[in-house]
């Protein structure tokens, strides 16, 4: 027996089939479960080049000693050396031989990776990681099979949302059941593709029929076609689904008609249905003081259902009635005057009407409960934040109330469970501001989870403005590029171990890239979001792939893509 074979029998070399592993990157040299693992990178074929191939956000697999495979995500990379004097006395750049020797041995790349999931021996289902691989475990690039195994296959429950970076063939699928089970959020600076991702997610949810969506569409992004900055047109939800799946209700029928958008009804709100609670949430944007808000409740109690109409009325009789409160000392003149001045804004909301024939809240509830999603287009009111917040608050309060009632009946075996509902709001930080979120319906919905089958999908560019308590209840977070430090911190609040992903988030591309983490994905993942285009239309409609662009438009698009 030779010495080699003798040694081999004592210390058997790794018998893993190398073809099963991706490109070897290095070995584990330290770290912890909470702070992540430290990988000493191999020198690579061209010594020192390995680090340049390893971008943050990439997946790696660590082969443990006990046949466990740990799935990790790269969170940071750095340059290290074995001797500090190398920094003061580096080899001459012209001395290629010495530099190569140094790069192969004395200096090395280091990667920090956060362990996320572990695949136990003889198990197909990855589990959350509770231990870490042993020293000197080999780290290799995750191959496509690994990633596919973690994110599952696209089926009725899983919707294809994009591909991991540099793995164009591997689909990342979001678990829709889990996505709607808790409130979710789409965050990112403006212009990073929030609405495209949201539209993709919504089309997946509507197609699956797992929940109906009530979309408060501030900028007319979701209902009908939308053009991007290059002028390319994309289909809206109404073009992808028939009227049994998606209805568009408009607050501004004129603009909708001018734009050629088909709509299935106009929303009118009767003055007399408005309650002080509908307006109290606007205290911030209307700069109503606490005294003024309290005065609203007083007026409602004393004036009855017509309180708002009387407040806005120029009628002498109504004014006299109000003046009486002042004379009796129930109300200060300044308070009433301020309320009336601030309420002038309601006069410009054309959808507020004295007489409304149909109770649209009930109609909307019935539609939502029967699985029809509603896009509420704001038209010209999209730029009117008080109008947007008022309508969103008004409808959500009432629909939520109906859901609570229906759910309670179902508890008492007196009716069916209400169909799950996802309410989509933009500029969410205005609704979920720490000062008001305790009192608003949106704060309540976010906190009560899916108790009453209603969840939120918040779309926002300033997550730092959202109440921490609400933020911590957001189950799935889809985050495009954010660079404000406080926004980044907010996105990671309440996600254990995710702070390691900060660097990943701050390094996303400005468009079509997003970090998805939380309830609906087994582990955080950076994706290049799938194209919202003919292929997705075909999948949604189940028909042939066809583009709504003409050839001329395609040429223009290609030019724009190439030359900006």
């Amino acid at each position, binding site marked *: 027996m030779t010495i080699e074979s003798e040694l081999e029998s004592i210390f058997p070399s790794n018998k893993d089939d190398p073809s099963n592993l991706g490109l070897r990157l290095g070995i584990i040299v330290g770290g912890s479960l909470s702070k992540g693992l430290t990988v000493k990178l191999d020198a690579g074929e061209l010594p020192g080049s390995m680090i340049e191939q390893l971008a943050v956000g990439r997946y790696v697999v660590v082969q443990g000693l006990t046949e466990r495979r740990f799935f990790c995500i790269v969170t940071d990379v750095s340059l290290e050396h074995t001797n500090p004097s190398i920094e003061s*006395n580096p080899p001459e750049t012209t001395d290629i*031989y*010495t530099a190569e020797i140094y790069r192969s041995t004395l200096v090395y790349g280091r990667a920090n990776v956060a362990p996320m999931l572990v695949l136990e021996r003889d198990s197909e289902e990855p589990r959350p990681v509770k231990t870490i691989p042993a020293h000197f475990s080999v780290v290799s690039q995750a191959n496509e099979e690994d990633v596919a195994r973690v994110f599952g296959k696209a089926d009725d429950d899983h919707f294809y949302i994009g591909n991991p970076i540099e793995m164009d063939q591997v689909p990342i699928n979001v678990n829709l059941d889990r996505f709607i089970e808790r409130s979710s959020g789409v965050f990112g600076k403006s212009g990073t593709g929030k609405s495209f991702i949201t539209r993709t997610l919504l089309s997946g949810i509507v197609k699956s029929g797992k929940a109906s969506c009530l979309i408060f569409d501030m900028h007319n992004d979701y209902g009908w076609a939308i053009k991007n900055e290059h002028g390319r047109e994309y289909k809206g939800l109404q073009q992808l689904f028939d009227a049994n799946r998606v209805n568009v209700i408009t607050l501004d029928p004129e603009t909708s008609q001018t734009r050629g958008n088909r709509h299935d009804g106009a929303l009118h709100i009767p003055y007399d249905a408005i309650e002080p609670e509908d307006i109290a949430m606007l205290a911030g944007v209307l700069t109503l003081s606490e005294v003024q808000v309290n005065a609203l409740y007083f007026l409602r109690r004393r004036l009855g259902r017509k309180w708002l109409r009387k407040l806005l009325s120029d009628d002498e009789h109504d004014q006299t009635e109000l003046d009486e409160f002042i004379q009796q000392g129930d109300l200060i003149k300044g308070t009433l005057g301020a309320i009336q001045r601030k309420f002038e804004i309601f006069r410009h909301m054309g959808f507020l009407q004295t007489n409304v024939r149909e109770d649209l809240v009930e109609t909307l509830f019935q539609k939502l409960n029967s699985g029809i999603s509603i896009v509420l287009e704001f038209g010209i009111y999209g730029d009117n934040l008080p109008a947007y917040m008022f309508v969103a608050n008004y409808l959500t309060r009432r629909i939520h109330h109906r859901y609570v009632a229906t759910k309670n009946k179902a508890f008492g075996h007196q009716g069916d469970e209400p169909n799950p509902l996802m309410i989509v709001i933009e500029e969410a930080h205005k609704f979920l501001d720490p000062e008001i979120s305790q009192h608003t319906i949106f704060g309540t919905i976010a906190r009560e989870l899916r108790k009453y089958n209603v969840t939120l999908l918040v779309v926002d560019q300033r997550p730092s403005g959202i109440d921490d308590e609400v933020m911590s209840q957001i189950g799935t977070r889809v985050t495009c590029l954010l660079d404000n430090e406080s926004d980044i911190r907010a996105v990671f609040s309440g996600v254990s171990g995710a702070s390691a992903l900060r660097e990943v988030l701050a390094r996303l591309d400005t468009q079509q890239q997003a970090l998805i983490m939380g309830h609906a994905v087994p582990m955080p993942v950076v994706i290049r979001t799938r194209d919202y285009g003919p292929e997705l239309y075909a999948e949604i409609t189940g028909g042939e792939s066809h583009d709504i662009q003409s050839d001329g438009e395609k040429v223009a698009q290609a030019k724009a893509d190439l030359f900006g």
Partner: protein
Amino acid sequence: MLRSDTTGFTFGCLLPEPEVPLFGDFVKAPAQQGLTEIIGVIHNIVIEDDLFVRQLIAAPDLPDAYIQDQRRNRQIPIEVSVLSVGYSSGNTMIQGLPPQPPVTLDYIKRCSINDMIAFTDRQDYLALILNSKETPVDELIVAALQRASGARPIEDRALFLIQAGKELARLLSDDLSKLDSILRRIQVNT
């Protein structure tokens, strides 16, 4: 073979040896009754004086024939000291100190090119040289690598020197000035 110990041995030779030993050369000596062959690197060559040399050196106008005669027919041999760096047992080359040193009056041979290539296929012997106390370590490493590289075909030399350089870098990671000077001389001399 004059004398030996586990870490090395010294042999004697006369000047007209067909192959004059050189500093850094790889040589081999039989040991364990021919079971193993010890491989070493020459690290010192001593030419001592004797009584005749002392007398001759004082003599004026010495004819050239006298000088040549004295050189060829020395009373005291040239002493060549060798650092043991490994041994061969059968077909296996082992880098490390031999189990037994060679015994006196054994014949010492220079390693063939194939022996050198086979032995220097691994670089563990560099640690033995670096750890030796009584040798000019830097110079010996440069000279030994020069021989080992020269034994290889030209196309293999660069890779060999890189592997050797990596091993040196690992061994000298805490003494960069020494490493730097060795690496620089390797490039100049090979």
